[in-house]
Each structure stands twice: as structure tokens, then as C-alpha cells.
């Protein structure tokens, strides 16, 4: 089948304003959107800038907005967007991050917020001499959802709070905070509270659930944020 890709184009170094370029591409309905972008890039227009790597939804490079919704181009099949949404596919960069070029966005601010929450294990005790910390299956289950995060930025783009409050820490960083707060081996809650317990920290989230809707890893992000809020209140004796 033939489809039209309508792709956002903008090079801040040379373009006064952004535009959309349209490409007609022959595809198989079971191809991924990424396959069609690769076809354009390799055979028609090498100037098209986008990120990709693993091509099966685990590295997080190719998060972008496809027909207005945040998705991974490698996890989105052509047939799934054309059947329900027509033969033209609109492709745009993630929101809330400056466009570097075309579909590439500058992730430095996003990553600096991730780093702010101390996203690493802060154990209280020295590790066992020769062996593992003991952690029950139930304790392990408590962090399972959060450990799926690949930091692709889809949730950050979809979050309506960031539309009006660009200083909000954002859902991805909060997922990583919860990843460690609920790890039975971690004792770093107090250190992380300093960052989370702020007006632009965790309390700025007001439960729109957009992050949860778009997460390509199926993480229940809003739920994790709410559990973390409860944990902070508990620690503060509220």
C-alpha cells in the first residue's frame, strides 16, 4: 500500500520557521512507522533527522508524536495508525523539549531532571560480604513496574502540567524516584524528599493520567506518583 508521511521539518540554524514535508512511501501494512522513516532517509532524503536504535521498543530512542500521540516509531505499525486514522501519517517531535532538528529534541534538561532525584541505590548498610541482599518476591514486585522505564520521554511530552508549568520535574523523573523509594534495599527517601517535596516537584502533578496513557512500556505512572506522594506524607507524619 502507499501512504503519505507528513513530517515536521525544522533546522534552527537555517530555517526561519518550521514546515511539513510530505513523502509518498510504499509500505507493507505490518511495517513499523520507523521502517517508513528509514526508507525515506536511506533512499530519498538523507537530511531528515531523527533518532533510532534498537527498533523494537526497548531503547527509547525513537519516541515522537505520531498523529498527535506520543509513541515509539518502532512499536507503531503502519496498519494500526492507517486503519483508524487515514492514509496520511503526521509525524512531529516530542513536546516540552527544544527542537534540535526535525524530529530530534534536546534531552539535556530532561536528563538533568532525571539526575536530580538521585536515581541510584542508596543503601543504609554495607552490602553482604559475599552474596546478595535478601529481598522477598513481594518486595521485588513493589518496584517491578517502575524498573521498566526506558526514559524515552513520551510521558514528559504528553504531560499537560508542563504546558503551563515548565519547571515541573515531570513524570519520568518521578518514576525513577519511586523506583528507588519502594526498593526494600534503599534508604534514600530523606535525600530525595528535598527534591520531590516542592511545589514544582511531585505536588505539581494533578492526575491527568496522560503519561500513563502514552507510556510505551505500559507503566502505571500516575499510580506510582500517587503512591510516592502518600509515602512522603507518611514520612512527614501527615
Amino acid at each position, binding site marked *: 500500500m502507499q501512504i503519505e508521511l507528513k513530517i515536521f521539518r525544522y*533546522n534552527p*540554524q*537555517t530555517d526561519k520557521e518550521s514546515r511539513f514535508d510530505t513523502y509518498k512511501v510504499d509500505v507493507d501494512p*505490518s511495517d513499523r512507522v520507523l521502517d517508513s522513516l528509514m526508507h525515506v*532517509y*536511506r*533512499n*530519498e*532524503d*538523507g*537530511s531528515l*533527522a531523527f*533518532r*533510532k*536504535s*534498537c*527498533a*523494537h*521498543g*526497548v*531503547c*527509547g*530512542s525513537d519516541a515522537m508524536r505520531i498523529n498527535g500521540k506520543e509513541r515509539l516509531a518502532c*512499536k507503531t*505499525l503502519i496498519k494500526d495508525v492507517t486503519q483508524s486514522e487515514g492514509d496520511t501519517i503526521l509525524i512531529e517531535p516530542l513536546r516540552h523539549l527544544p527542537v*534540535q*532538528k*526535525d524530529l*530530534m529534541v534536546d*534531552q539535556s534538561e530532561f*536528563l538533568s531532571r532525571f*539526575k536530580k532525584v*538521585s*536515581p*541510584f*541505590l542508596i*543503601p543504609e548498610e554495607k*552490602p*553482604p560480604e*559475599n*552474596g*546478595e*541482599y*535478601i*529481598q*522477598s*518476591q513481594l*518486595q*521485588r514486585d513493589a*518496584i*517491578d513496574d517502575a*524498573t*521498566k522505564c*526506558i*526514559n524515552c520521554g513520551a510521558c514528559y511530552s504528553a504531560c499537560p502540567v508542563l504546558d503551563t508549568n515548565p519547571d515541573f520535574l515531570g513524570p519520568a523523573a518521578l518514576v525513577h524516584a519511586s523506583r*528507588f523509594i519502594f*526498593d526494600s*534495599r*534503599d534508604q534514600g527517601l530523606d535525600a530525595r524528599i528535598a527534591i520531590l517535596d516542592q511545589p514544582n516537584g511531585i505536588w505539581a502533578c494533578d492526575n491527568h493520567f496522560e503519561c500513563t496513557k502514552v507510556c510505551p512500556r*505500559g507503566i502505571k505512572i500516575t499510580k506510582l506518583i500517587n503512591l510516592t506522594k502518600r509515602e512522603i506524607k507518611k514520612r512527614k507524619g501527615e
Partner: protein
Amino acid sequence: MDYDYDVLIVGAGGAGLYAALEASRTGKTAVLTKVYPQRSHTGAAQGGIGAALGNVEEDKPEWHAFDTVKGGDYLVDQNAAVILAEDAVRAVYDLENRGLPFSRTPEGKIDQRRFGGHTRNFGEGPVRRACYAADRTGHMILQTLYQQCIKSDVAFYDEFFVLDVMLDGDTPSGLIVFELATGQIHMFKAKVILFATGGFGRMFKITSNAYSNTGDGPAILARNGIPLMDMEFFQIHPTGIRDMGILITEGVRGEGGILYNSEGEAFMKRYAPTMLDLAPRDMISRAIMTEIFEGRGIRGTRKIDDYVYLDASHLGRAKVEEKIPDIADFCRTYLDVDPAEAPMPVQPTAHYAMGGIPTNVNGQVWTGEKVYPGLYAAGECACVSVHGANRLGTNSLVDLVVFGRRAGQHIAEYVRNAPQGRVDKDRARWWKDRIARLKSAKGSHPGEIFDSMQETMMEKVGVYRTGSEMEKAVSSLQKLRLDYEHVSVHAGAENFNAEVQTVLELGNLLDLALHTAASALNRQESRGAHTRDDFPDRNDGDWLKHSLSTLKDNQISFQYRDVDVHKWEPKPRVY
């Protein structure tokens, strides 16, 4: 001079990050990566990391070492296999202690499951050796190591693509690097350089590998005169998703998944009566291709793109969702198949480079004759050799954490008194000119050469190989390398010109494809993943040796190195 460090690590997967953590204890260290660190392909590893913890049943590092040697069809260096198995236990505990969320036993210890070729007591039967975190073990290793690097303030240069290494005699003095964001060429000065650039499966049409797996490290060193080792041994994993090559972990068979042909027969009983579906990967890939060629593939076409079924539906939904949730997601997304209810269509997929940059057990580049002081390699781009002719499942993660860590520790000592070599400013100018030429020429797009290389490798240097077909592959690749001289970059932009990088990556892949095809043609025997119908038997008399290939003037030449067989005498390999 643009940048000045003691230690440069190229690549931010598991091996590079572990090495960086260790090396940065004494040396000023930076990691250069062409993707963002969390995007590295280690994150795609699924099923597990082997270590003889003995948490669910008796196990010993010695058994792990033996399985590794036998699994590699005796081309494994046995001293390295022993170190691999012993250090695996320490490395797994270290990762857990640093936060890695392994799946747990009812007692709260690290849980372990079965994987292909892992046995108790030297082959008696399967053993549970693979430590795992659901089916995203690699993701957890990558995340944990990156988190630790953040904690330790390791310096990262993201989207910095390494073009070349500068050597002063046999010692590295720095790197020449393309910065994607600006298009600038930088010189990075250093006393120690470690390459951890991963695999190069993108030379094949059907592959589990990321787009970024283009073998930059081995290609760069090979162009600088360092031979590559055992390049003929490329692992074709038996279970990739039909037509796409996305991996379906061996953990599926470890949990009880079974392969079926079009007649509904569980065919592995005819090929590996003891280990059945948990035989090593080379044997299962051959079994699947034999079924297909004899007309028992699902489509019955007898062609290379036919497939078989991998069935896990009898495990039940609860186990599928708990043990292989990502696999279930892939199958639903890409195949519209729910593995809790229906079998998965699978075909062999190019997966892992067992050859690469030759190193010793400390990660130093080592040709067998000489060590290159200060030059290191670890992970999939390196060849220690612990995989020999066929890598056992889980041993890739073991390799990269064990030897990434060991190399980092060795660097931390070495760098204290390491000399700084002379840097060669002309090399940076040469690369600037090279890229300017790429942009000014009016040549073709790289698409056709990519396709042609990938099809040639898949059809002629795949699971089954014959001399005449490989000869055709070698001459096709030589011609493609000449055609490649006329490829140009069509976008002139300085900033984020990914096309420059793509074209240079293609050059790296073409070099490595020629190394692989010529090495396969040269080795006149069948061993592990290298199976020839014109030389169907293993020939220890002539070929119990590593091959070292050198590419010059579009021709490959060979030297050889002995295999360390001090512990276990080579025997016929049956399961």
C-alpha cells in the same frame, strides 16, 4: 588539543560503563558514545546472566567453565573460560549490591532458570544457572551501571561518534571524533583507550541487532593494522520473530517452551536427545533450517525465509506474564499473536559476533605475539576468547560484565604510570577533508549497498555455508566496497548530519562483512556456528586454532593462534 583525559572509553553499554566505573577510580575518565547511554544495545538483552550461585540447585563455576568450552566447540581459550565462570559469581553479586533488581526465589535470593547448554556435572542434564530480571535482564544491567556512573560523576560525551584512533607505535595517544550536534571533528588525547562498541549484526538482513550495531571499534582497529580474531563465527540465534528478527529469548525454552514443525512434531528430539530444546544455539539453528529445507517449515517453501513455531502457551497466562512479559508484548505488537494462547512464528536471526578485537583476560589488545599497552577492548566487540565457535546463552552478559570490569580494574592500575604518546594532528585534518569530500561529491544514496550487503551475508554466510557461495559473497563484498567509494552525503548541514555518520558506519560494516565472509571461506571445517556442507566435520588436526584476519587493498590475509586447551581435551560434541 580539544580534550585531554587519562582514559577514554568508547561505547556506553555494559562493558564500557563497568570499565568506566572502575577506571575512573584513579584516572580522569570520559565515556564517548554515539547514542545516549541508556539507549545502548545491552538494554535489549533479555533472558539472563549465567553465574554458578547455586541458589536453587547445586552448581559450580567449574561446570559453567566446562559448558562454555564444550558449547564453543572447543575453540574457547580454557584459561579465559575458567576466569569467566569464577568472576561471574562476583560480578553478579556486585551488580545486585549496586541495586540490580533480580527476580527472586521464595527465600529472597536471586532466582535462577534454565538456559541452553547449561548443565550439571559436565553434561548430565540441565541446571538452573541463569540469574534474571524477568525478560529484561540486560535493561536492568544497563540501567544499574548507568545509575552508578551518575553516582560517581563519570563524564559522558553523548552522540560523539569515534572516527579513528591515533597510535604512537603500539600505544594509543588519542581519538578523532565526530560530534553529531555540531559536525565538528575533535581530538581527544588520552593514555588509555578502551573500545566497547558492541556487535555488528547489521551486516545481516535478518538480525536482532540495533541500527547502531555497526562494529565501529573493530573496524577502526582493523584499519590501523590490528588483526581481528575468529570473524567467521557469527551466531545466528534460532528464535527471532519471523521476518523481523527481533529476539525471542532462549529463556522461553528455559521455562519450557517447545519448537514444532509444520507436522506438529517437537523435532528437537531427533537432533539433541538429552538437552532437546535446551541444546546450544548453533545446533537448534541448524535443526530449524534442516526442518525448513526438508519441507517441514510452516509455509513448506523450503526457502531460507520459512519459519517454525515456538510454543509457550502450555505454560499458562500467569507464567507468561510473569516470566516473559516483554516477549508477550513484542508478539502482540508485531505478530498479533498472544503467546499465552498461540505459538510464536520464529526463524533464525543474526545475533552475536563471537569474533572481534583479540584481547587477553585483562582486556588488553593482544594478537598472541604482542600486547598493545594502553589499548583495551571488552564486550561483544572483543574476542577473549570465551565463546569460541558458539556462544552459550547468557554468556554475552557474563562476558561484558566480567571483562568490562576486569579491564577497568587493570586500567586503574596501568594508568598510574602510563606514558602519553604523541598525537597526530594530520589525522584530524585528513578526516575533515574526508567528510568534506563526502558532502561535495555527487554520488548515490547508500540504501542499495546496505541492502545488497545484508542480503549477501544472510544468504551466503548464514547458518549453512558452502565454498562456492562464500566465494561469491567475498567477490560481491569486494565490489560493494568499490561501489561504496562513490556514495555521497546529500545533506550539507553541519548540525545533526546523521547522514555523515550513517555512510561512515556502512563503511565499517562493509569491512567487517568482508572479514567475516573471507574468514568463513578460509576455514575448511565445520565447528559450532560455522557449518559447511563441503567440509561437514570438525577437523581438530588442522583447524583447532584461532584465525586472525587482516584487510589490505580489498584482500584478506590470515595468521593463526593456538587455542588454550590445557584443562579439557576436545571431544565430540553431543547433547
